[in-house]
C-alpha cells in the first residue's frame, strides 16, 4: 500500500465514541474531491450537475463511514461509491432519454468538425450514447487513466470482464462518432 493511502487510512480513525469526526471527514473530502469531481465532470454537461453528484457521493461516504472495513484504501472505496452513483445517474438519464447538447447545433456548415472544443463536446455527446457501464469504463480507463485492476475493483467485476467491456465500448464509440460524421483528421 502506498504511503498516501496509509495516511488516508489513518485519517479515518474514529473518535472515542466510534464516530468519525468532522475533521477526518473534511480531510477525506479535500484529498479526494478532484478525482471524484473530474469523474463526474466527464459524465455530465455542467459544473452544477457534476457538483451535485460529487456532493451526493460524499454524503453517502459520510453516512457509511462506520461500514468502511479498511480492507482497501479509502480512495478505492470512495471511488466505488462514486462509480455506483454515476452509473445510477446515467441509467436515470437514459430512462428519461436525456439529450444534452444537440448534435445538430454543433455541426459546422461543411459537416466537418475543425474546432477542437467542438470535437471534445461531440466526443462527450457520443459517449452518452453508450450504455451506462460502457460510459463508465471509458471514463475510468481513458479519461481518469485508472489501470484495469482498479477499474475492475470499482465496477465490481473481474479485470478480464472490464477489458472486454472497454473493448466493446471503444468500438461502439468509434461507430457512434462515424455516424455523427466526425472526421478523425480534425481531431
Amino acid at each position, binding site marked *: 500500500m502506498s504511503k498516501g493511502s496509509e495516511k488516508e487510512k489513518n485519517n479515518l480513525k474514529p473518535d472515542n465514541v466510534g464516530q468519525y469526526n468532522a475533521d477526518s471527514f*473534511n480531510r477525506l473530502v479535500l484529498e479526494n*474531491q478532484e478525482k471524484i469531481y*473530474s469523474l463526474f465532470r*466527464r459524465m455530465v454537461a455542467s459544473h452544477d450537475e457534476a457538483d451535485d453528484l460529487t456532493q451526493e457521493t460524499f454524503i453517502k461516504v459520510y453516512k457509511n463511514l462506520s461500514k468502511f472495513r479498511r480492507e482497501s484504501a479509502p480512495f478505492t472505496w470512495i471511488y466505488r461509491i462514486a462509480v455506483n452513483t454515476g452509473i445510477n445517474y446515467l441509467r436515470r438519464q437514459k430512462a428519461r432519454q436525456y439529450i444534452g447538447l444537440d448534435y445538430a447545433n454543433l455541426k459546422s456548415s461543411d459537416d466537418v468538425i475543425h474546432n477542437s472544443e467542438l470535437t471534445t463536446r461531440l466526443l462527450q455527446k457520443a459517449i452518452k450514447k453508450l450504455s451506462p457501464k460502457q460510459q463508465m469504463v471509458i471514463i475510468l480507463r481513458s479519461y481518469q487513466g485508472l489501470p484495469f485492476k482498479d477499474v475492475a475493483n470499482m465496477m465490481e467485476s473481474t479485470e478480464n470482464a472490464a477489458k472486454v467491456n472497454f473493448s466493446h465500448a471503444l468500438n461502439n464509440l468509434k461507430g457512434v462518432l462515424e455516424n455523427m460524421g466526425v472526421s478523425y483528421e480534425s481531431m
Partner: protein
Amino acid sequence: MKACKNYEDLLPLYASGDLSSTDHNKVEEHLKECKGCRDYQLSLSTITALMERDVVEISPSYGAELVVALNRRLDRRSTWQKRLFWTIPAFATAMAVVVITIISLIKTEPAGNQWIAELNLEHDYLNFTDTGYFGEIPVDDSDISNGDVDLSTYDLYRDAVCQIVENPQICEIDSYLLATGNLDDEDFKKMIEQLKYKLL
C-alpha cells in the same frame, strides 16, 4: 471502416496500451500487413488520445467550497435528526396526555363541579329548613350554629344522594345516574325541586 474479426476486440486494448506483450506483438505483426486494421487502429488511437488529453479544469477553491457545502448539508441533516429525536417523544407524550385527559374526562363526573356550584346557589334553601332531614342525620339550625353538625354543602349533597339511591321513591331521578354522577344541570335542578317538595 472495419477491422478483421479476430482483431476487433484486441485493437481497443492495443490503443490504450493494455495488451499483454504476446498479444501486443501479435497485433503489431498483423497491422503491418492489414490496411483495414491500420485505419481502424488509427481511429481508435485518435479517440483515446483525445480523451487522455482532455483535462477537467477545477477551480482551486472548489475543494474548500465543497467542504463548506457538505458541512452545511450535514448540519442541516443533524438539526433535523435532533429535531426528530426530540419531536417524536414530545409528540408521543403530548398525545398520551391528550388521550389520558380524554379518558379521565369520560370517566369523571362531567358536571360534578357544576353541581357543587349549583349547590352553592341552593345553599340558602338547604340551610333555611328549620329541620332538614338528610338520610339518618337530623339537622337542626341550633346544631348548625353550635357547630355540632358539620353540614357543608358537599356533605348535604352527598347525604342527599345516598338517601335517594337507597330510597328511590323519594325522587324520580334515575338512581344510577345519580350514583354515577351523570346528572345534567336540568336533572340536578329537578332533583333539588323534588327534594324541596319532599322535605318541606
